[in-house]
């Protein structure tokens, strides 16, 4: 195996390398999926394009009252960013669950998304947050909602010359909160059986005016479930609304059977976990 390694300093140079590749090329961010896949012979790239030296991919900046997060910023740096933690605790809940401290020293949310695992922990909260990915390629730049990027296990809607540069998280209206919870047999270092991201906003009277709910690990891609959001909007997130939410979450599941759980189990857990996560998001929203 003869692998070429390039670490371009600019987006243009990175896109040119990917576009010009005549053999399989792979973008390298933190490498916590790529290097494992190379080591276990799942992939045999002949070109690795390391994007970590490109400034736009490594910055967290304030923008229009929200945040722009470089796609290759490692998890530990996201966790150390106080303002981001305060505004989007649910997104950070997802990041904190990725592997160990050693893994999060390298793992990025761009990689977590583009690896295409339906169980990727940062993806449901990003989708619930309404995050928009900025993508650059030969044809220029496009802005795409995160839910439109995964298309199946290990697959994305990106063209071979395209790179996710950053994610935009919008400004928060008052009384907003988000949360992510996953269900695993162990507390650390495990893969989600079900993961739920909930993001909601209340009015001054405590009625839910906006909500987004995303489910992970229950279908070939992470799902944004409108019926779950509809169960919450217009309610005070009371027991009746939570029961409707749980039913909608269970109904949306199209899971597989595997060693971590059967279909029936995942469908049941999805409903239970959706309720718990909504209550966690509600608690945050009431404090903001």
């Amino acid at each position, binding site marked *: *195996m003869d692998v*070429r*390694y390039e670490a371009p300093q600019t987006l243009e140079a990175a896109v040119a390398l990917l576009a010009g590749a005549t053999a399989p090329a792979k973008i*390298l961010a*933190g490498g916590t999926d790529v290097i494992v896949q190379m080591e276990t012979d799942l992939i045999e790239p002949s070109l690795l394009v390391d994007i970590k030296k490109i400034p736009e991919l490594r910055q967290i900046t304030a923008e229009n009252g929200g945040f722009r997060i470089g796609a290759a910023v490692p998890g530990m740096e996201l966790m150390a960013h106080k303002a981001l933690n305060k505004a989007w605790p649910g997104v950070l809940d997802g990041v904190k669950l990725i592997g*160990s401290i050693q893994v999060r*020293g*390298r793992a990025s949310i761009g990689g977590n998304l583009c690896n295409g695992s339906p169980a990727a922990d940062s993806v449901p909260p990003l989708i619930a947050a309404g995050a928009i990915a900025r993508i650059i390629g030969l044809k220029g730049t496009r802005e795409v909602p995160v839910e439109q990027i995964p298309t199946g296990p290990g697959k994305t809607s990106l063209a071979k010359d395209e790179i996710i540069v950053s994610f935009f998280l919008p400004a928060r209206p008052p009384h907003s909160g988000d949360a992510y919870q996953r269900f695993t047999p162990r507390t*650390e*270092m495990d893969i989600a059986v079900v993961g739920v991201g909930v993001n909601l906003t209340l009015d001054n009277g405590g009625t839910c005016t906006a909500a987004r709910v995303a489910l992970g690990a229950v279908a070939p891609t992470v799902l944004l479930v409108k019926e779950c959001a509809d169960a919450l909007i217009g309610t005070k997130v009371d027991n009746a609304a939570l029961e409707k939410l749980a039913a909608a979450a269970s109904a949306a599941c199209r899971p597989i059977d595997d060693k971590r759980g059967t279909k029936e189990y995942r469908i049941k857990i999805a409903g239970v976990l959706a309720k718990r996560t909504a209550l966690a998001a509600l608690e945050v929203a009431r404090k903001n």
Partner: protein
Amino acid sequence: MAKKYHITTTVNGDEYEYLCEAQQTLLDVLRDELQLAGTKEGCATGDCGACTVTVDGTMVCACLVLAVETDGAKVDTIEGMANGNELHPLQRSFLELNGSQCGICTPGILIAARELLKRNPDPTETEIRYWLAGNLCRCTGYDKIIRSVQAAAKEMRGA
């Protein structure tokens, strides 16, 4: 002939120059090229933490870093932990309190524990357990590791 990359890396304060291929991991290079075999390989897939080192101050699994990525970087491994013949307090407490049995996990755990104590000199048992969640041990059952870290932390605080 596979393409070779010329890499310059500072390891434990000493500058090393070597040639490597793009797919070689930092763990392979440390052990096989630089003869620094203190860093252990348990799994080569990021699961066990035996290969824990720091790169520019960040704790990582050396099996999940390519050597080419560390050109110009500062790497710290277990070989740099003792000060000459004087063991680090963590190394001493692991010896005294049997925090190490077969020893495969020990270098990674010592590096991880040192990074914890740099950031948090007085961690609770729960904080130690969470911090070390990425370091697996098949021998000790972890309790002796926790006691060893607590004893070293106490000594380092001068308590």
